[in-house]
């Protein structure tokens, strides 16, 4: 398994990734590194559509066979959509963390928050430093 870190995304120290589209909507998931650490995922508790999230708020839970792990919103905004596929197929995150395994979408309240997140190099370094 490779620990992919796509260069076009932004990252958090708590292992979420963020992709922002032209309309100011952020798609959020957990990184490939995070899914590999967690192992086989068996349940995802999704945020509620319409919920107002603050940056850093606990908003979802991913559970592997080993343990439960919180997912934090990297940005402030309203939840527009959640990835319903994960309700029946949580392993989608194991298989494709950055595309099909996205978790939720948020309308950004403050686009500048995204700029403050880690870029791919900084995240890769952070992930490596946590290895041991």
């Amino acid at each position, binding site marked *: 398994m490779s620990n992919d870190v796509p260069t076009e995304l932004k990252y958090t120290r708590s292992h979420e990734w963020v992709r922002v589209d032209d309309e100011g909507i952020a798609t959020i998931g957990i990184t490939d590194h995070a899914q590999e650490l967690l*192992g086989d995922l*068996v*349940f995802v508790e999704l945020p509620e559509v319409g919920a107002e999230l603050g940056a850093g708020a606990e908003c979802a839970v991913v*559970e592997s*066979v080993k343990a*439960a792990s919180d997912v934090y919103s990297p940005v402030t905004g309203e939840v527009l959509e959640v990835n319903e596929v994960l309700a029946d197929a949580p392993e989608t995150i194991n298989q494709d963390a950055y595309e099909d395994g996205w978790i939720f979408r948020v309308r950004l309240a403050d686009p500048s928050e995204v700029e403050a997140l880690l870029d791919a190099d900084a995240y890769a370094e952070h992930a490596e430093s946590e290895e041991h």
Partner: protein
Amino acid sequence: MDKKTVLNETHRDMGARMVSFGGWDMPVNYGSQIEEHHAVRHDAGMFDVCHMTVVDLRGARTREFLQHLLANDVGKLQNPGKALYSCMLREDGGVIDDLIVYFLSENWFRMVVNAATTEKDVAWIEAQAKPYEVSVEPRFDLGMIAVQGPKAREKAKTVLPGDLAASAMDLKPFSAAYAGEWFVGRTGYTGEDGFEVMMPESEAPAFWRALADAGVAPCGLGARDTLRLEAGMNLYGSDMDETQSPLTSGLAWTVALEPQDRAFNGRSALERQRAGGDLPKFVGLLLEGKGVLRGHQKVFDGDREVGELTSGGFSPTLERSIAMARVAADAGEQLTVDVRGKRLTVRRVKMPFVRNGKACIAL
């Protein structure tokens, strides 16, 4: 710095993901815990259990000593090689450890105790053994590998030392055979058929690789935990410990109160507990909907808190979450569990959840 078993390098070479596990650097999986779990249920898998400790007990009065030390009665062990599961208790009935004891001869019994409890176990056993003039020898020179699954014995046969392979295949469940320092017990901790094999430590890596070549899947301790949970087998430190007795841990079946004149450690405490009545019940739970139950989550009967989960997790065989719980004697059948602030409905079920590859409960 975590301790390492003799197989540590082998695990790394073969691609295991290593984690710190009770003071030991152990493989948690070799890629996918769920695939390893299924390998054991449907074919054969193996586990490094070298961190567990073999303790040899020798002396003319060993049987008499063990009848004092253990809550189960080694008087039941009449044929050499036969094994027995038992708790070792404090005077107040608290469980010091759970273990397997093998009867090899009147002068030699062998026990296998848990890794995390080894130090306190050996100190306790030595102190208790003195009046019986029994020698207590921890065998840190032996390695141990568990080979489990419906095809485990067949596959292990091809790589066991020649003089042991034939006798191993003739073993009845919960019995052992040995040749030199190699020892094979038809025992395990997964709810499947299989062997636990002990050998000189230096020979463990080659045996591990030979088993892999014979088609036995290397497995991490993650799968060992989901397998034992499905099999309804208690985990020391989670489902019982020094604050609980076998009677409150679903292990009453391992306590031999007959014959009545056998004065074992903890006997009078257990008799008092039993006479007092209303002991908490140790039950199996099935989560009705989606989600994952985990140890220490609280159990409710209506608005009343009636106990907590001792261990819980996702069952790969049932594709549902299951748990063991200690609940009040008068807890009803309709229970809920507090999972991160939400009350999820659970159903009480009879354990085991899974045995020999098959679901034992209706879903």
